[in-house]
């Protein structure tokens, strides 16, 4: 009888010492189970510009975290086209391990290269209309992309460490859905501003709503959005390289992937 009572007491003690719910971890390690969203609003404070700041290049993401970084991204392919002597889009945000295709839709050759360490540096050499080359970006960071034939072409590819990122809407509002519970660092980045970072907690009953005011930073502007520099243009219209790159060259080209049909034809 006594032994039975002891066993029952031990079982009761074990049951009482167990976590009340598997959704609440015993430690602060984040759970991969989706929780509430992170919402907020971003504004840009401009000292130098006389016009309204452009929010199109504001990225909000969760900083590198072993659990978050292990979550696979639902979208692992993206595209930066070359059209009308411009990269389209000029600003792309992707998660790490995403492959970016660079189709050429101009009726003359283009080149794509980057000296950014996060890429790491690469040179896609020249290729013609209807062709494309690809590059997978394994490291998080800012990658500036240029064309060695048309120096006025430039783009930024922002690679986040995990899929938990978003861009703000035209009013500066953002939502990152499905963030697992835990404690994280939320980062707000813009190519013209100083980066901001805030420590946040996400839980079953915690859906952070945040507010950021970014300040335009002269050094960021000059680094990522510098004034256009003109060059001698007698070789305009030719597939002539402007500078010697000495970067690892990607030779493999493939036909440009067919774009999705326009919405009205679906």
């Amino acid at each position, binding site marked *: 009888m006594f032994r039975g009572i002891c066993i029952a007491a031990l079982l009761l003690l074990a049951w009482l010492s167990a976590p009340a719910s598997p959704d609440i971890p015993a430690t602060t390690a984040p759970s991969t189970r989706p929780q509430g969203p992170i919402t907020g609003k971003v504004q840009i404070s401009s000292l*130098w*510009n*006389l*016009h309204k700041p452009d929010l*199109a290049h504001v990225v909000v993401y969760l900083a590198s975290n072993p659990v978050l970084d292990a979550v696979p991204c639902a979208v692992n392919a993206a*595209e930066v*086209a070359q*059209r*009308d*002597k*411009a990269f*389209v*889009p*000029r*600003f792309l945000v992707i998660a790490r391990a995403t492959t970016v295709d660079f189709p050429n*839709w*101009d*009726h*003359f*050759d283009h080149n794509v290269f980057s000296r950014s360490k996060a890429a790491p540096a690469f040179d896609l050499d020249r290729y*013609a209309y209807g062709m494309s080359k690809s590059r997978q970006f394994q490291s998080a960071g800012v990658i500036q992309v240029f064309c060695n*034939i048309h120096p*006025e072409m430039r783009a930024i590819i922002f690679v986040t460490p995990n899929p938990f990122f978003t*861009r703000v809407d035209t009013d500066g509002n953002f939502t990152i859905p499905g963030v697992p519970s835990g404690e994280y660092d939320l980062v707000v980045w813009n190519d013209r501003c100083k980066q901001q970072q805030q420590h946040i907690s996400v839980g079953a009953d915690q859906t952070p709503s945040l507010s950021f005011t970014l300040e*335009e930073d*002269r*050094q960021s*502007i*000059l*680094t990522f*959005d*510098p*004034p*256009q520099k*003109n060059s*001698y*243009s*007698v*070789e*305009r*219209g*030719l*597939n*002539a*390289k402007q*500078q*010697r790159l000495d970067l690892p060259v990607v030779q493999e080209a493939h036909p*440009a992937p*067919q*774009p*999705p049909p*326009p*919405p009205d034809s679906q």
Partner: protein
Amino acid sequence: MVAAREIRSILVLAVFLALLSSPTLAQTSRPDATSGADLAEPQSTPAIFQGLEVGAWGWLSAVHTSDDGGEVYWSGEGSLSATKSFNGQFALSAQGDFIDANNQVRGVLEQGYATLLLSDHWQTALTVGKFNAGIGVEARDFWNRTDATTSLIFGALPQDLVGIMITQPLPGTDIKLRPFVAEGIEGTFDFGKAPSGGLMVQYQPSDQLNIGLTNWIGPGYMPANWSSSDYYEAPALNWVGPQILASPQGILYLLDANVTWNVATDLSLAAEFVYAANSASPHDIGWTGFLVQGNYTLTENWRLFARWSYLDDAVGLITSDPAVHNELSAGVAYSLNRHLEVRAEYRHDFSTDYGADDLYSIDLTFGF
């Protein structure tokens, strides 16, 4: 009351602004699309428009000078250019300018040339026609320049070439060679004399440093009996290039050396030296000049610039004024956007002949 020439300059500007806002030209602006729909393959373009690049820029300027009783010089210039590329192997380019320089109206074909990529492997290009020379640190066209007025040595250097030029990058180096044969340093269609020739060497090891060296040899000049009224623009208002009033004689040797150093993302420095020796009887004549200039970028909107240029025009071949000239200038530029910039400049000119002259200028430039 606004003078007729000012109205005309403003009308030139208005016409070009209207042209630039048209969809045809707007296609050359850079899209910033982010939606998937924008990534769709473009609609099939008519063959004539494939590889066609159209550009336009304009400039409206007012220069107040303490000389001539404080007169204000109005200038307006509109430029249209087009380049048609044929698969990147062959290209035709043309640029026409309409100029209203203080009530002197004219239209000019500034550039008209063909370029052929002779060797895709060696990146050898052949250029034939009339084209910008690209010698020196000051760009030929106002829209591309970083200062408001041109330096004293701008008019002492060839700005347009009428002839043939080969562009050849040296494999494995950061050097480009551009040998050329041209009509003369004034860039006109005057073929009644022996051709000139030379070599431009460009060394650009990085985005931070650019070094250029040009030598030139061709028919020379000797001073003519001119009057000051023959020279229709003061040096500060010369943004066309050399306009030498002289008789042909002897041989002209010209050397230009320049360096542009982008010290940091916000600071760019440049220096240039030009030396011209003209072997003409009874003794050699020529000119010597230099400039140093700096550009400091505050943000992508605000920019400061300053320059000192010097020209020893010993016999007045360049300025019609045999004297040593100096010019100090400084100013500020504000870009309203990537297509529109306003510049304000103060300039102090002084020479051993005429003394000092203060100039104030306001300029509006736009380009697409």
